[in-house]
């Protein structure tokens, strides 16, 4: 049997180049960022898996991504057009808000599901744990771009002005993605400790949607409440930005752009740092 006094022996290994040393770690947030860049092909595969597996056994396949928002719009249009019919091109107004909102709600919900699904995986193999939230956002963006097709169609049918402003659409999409990723990272950190978050979030997101001017115009909210209901709601700025490009055909005001960007990028930063600071605990809990 060997006498296992390692400490002395170890000192002679200090000149050997190790590729990993648990004592020489940079900041977890930065390390995670480098790691996710190294694993970019995995993100692509995870997104592909999400999209392919979702529709593999259905006949209409990817077409569902376009039919889903259209169907939802149709239902809401029937219900609410009597109430808000005075809004010009209400169908386009509704669908533009709905597309942006479902992107947000689907991405954040799927981030929670992914980390729970990934629990089995991350106990077996090393991978950057942000991959689950990042790939959820990626899947969301692909679906969002697919649902832009029916949106353009509705915008054309309802004679909304299509201007060069539409070329700026990637900017609110990027900001929405950043915001959804930030929220998704925070939520999945909670969800690992408290699986109930999944259920709770479904209620929160429902309430949040009705508090955001998606199916109603923002001017129906009384002046005195606007401060609370609109200006403190991050999604208000992001949806307004998205909508003004595609529905109004103009650039949003500078105010909206600045506030929206600060909120979106700030949320992403906080979410990323928070997630990475808690990452090491996941394997102990999940």
């Amino acid at each position, binding site marked *: *049997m*060997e006498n*296992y006094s*390692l*400490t002395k*022996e*170890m000192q002679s*290994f200090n000149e*050997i*180049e*190790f*590729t*990993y*040393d*648990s*004592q020489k770690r940079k900041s977890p947030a930065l390390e995670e960022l480098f790691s996710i860049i*190294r*694993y970019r*092909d*995995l993100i*692509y*595969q*995870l997104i*592909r*898996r999400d999209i*392919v*597996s979702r529709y*593999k*056994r259905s006949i209409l396949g990817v077409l569902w991504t376009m039919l889903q928002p259209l169907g939802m719009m149709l239902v809401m249009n029937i219900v609410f057009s009597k109430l808000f019919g005075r809004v010009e091109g209400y169908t386009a107004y509704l669908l533009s808000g709905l597309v942006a909102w479902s992107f947000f709600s689907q991405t954040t919900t799927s981030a929670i599901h992914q980390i729970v699904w990934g629990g*089995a*995986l*991350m*106990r*077996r*193999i*090393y*991978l950057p744990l942000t991959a689950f939230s990042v790939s959820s956002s990626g899947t969301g963006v692909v679906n969002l771009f697919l649902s832009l097709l029916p949106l353009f169609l509705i915008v054309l049918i309802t004679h909304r002005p299509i201007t060069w402003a539409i070329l700026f659409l990637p900017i609110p999409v990027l900001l929405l993605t950043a915001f959804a990723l930030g929220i998704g990272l925070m939520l999945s950190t909670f969800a690992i400790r*408290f*699986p*109930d*978050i999944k259920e*709770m979030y479904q209620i929160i997101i429902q309430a949040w949607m009705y508090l955001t001017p998606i199916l109603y115009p923002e001017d129906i909210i009384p002046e005195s409440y606007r401060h609370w209901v609109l200006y403190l709601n991050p999604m208000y700025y992001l949806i307004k930005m998205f909508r003004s490009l595609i529905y109004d055909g103009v650039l949003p005001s500078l105010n909206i752009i600045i506030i929206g960007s600060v909120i979106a990028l700030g949320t992403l930063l906080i979410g990323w740092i928070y997630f990475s600071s808690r990452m*090491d605990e996941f*394997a*102990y809990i999940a």
Partner: protein
Amino acid sequence: MLILHKVYNSFVMKPVIILEKISVRYRAPEARIRTFKEYIIQLLRRKVRFKEFRALSNVDLRVDEGEIFGIIGRNGAGKSTLLKVVSRVLMPTEGRVRLRGRVSPLLELGAGFHPELTGRENVLLNGTLLGHSRREVESRLMEIIEFSEIDAFIDSPLRTYSSGMVARLGFSIATTWKPEILILDEILSVGDEAFRAKCEIRMARFRDEGTSTLLVAHDMITIGKLCSRVMWLDHGEVKAVGLAKEIVDLYRASQRAKKKV
């Protein structure tokens, strides 16, 4: 021979894995609190008591280049926890981990497989899961399919595969690239005799090319046949480390003694 081995060891052998004073402690709430509401209530009452569970305490380990190192012990001795620490899945509560090179874990085959995707699509997914680029996986695709012996079904969804086929595909993906560190947890018990022989040949080739293997098995014959050195874990502590034959004999003796009592 033994002296030669030791001399060779001290001069040429380079460590690939070094664990120093590794402890892993789980803090499990005494009564399992799973809901947020309960947690808040308990927290307000200051009643969240934690029971500490030591999965590993003060474990030192050194594995050199080209070594097949075995880990034995009874269920719950901390074998799998140790493998998780080495594969960087689990950050130890205390201690230092140093690794040289890429770790390829084969803890449970096909953990990342998706039943609706075809075998081919799953190869791409799992290859990138191991940290390879898509191009790297694509260039080795034929080799992976060939080794796994499922060419005819490679474009069928994975849910139609038998468990043996899934295991073969998993092993094939994980061992197509020569890793610096290979981690095997009880996987040699899957597959038929012929495939197992193929796996052992591949492991031997890796060893000759300098790959270090960390192997957990309950089958002492496998351990004795493959490993150069062995660590015996008991209740999270190192009971003994040394040449495979010595430790296996010790372990067997203690098991027999226990059975008699």
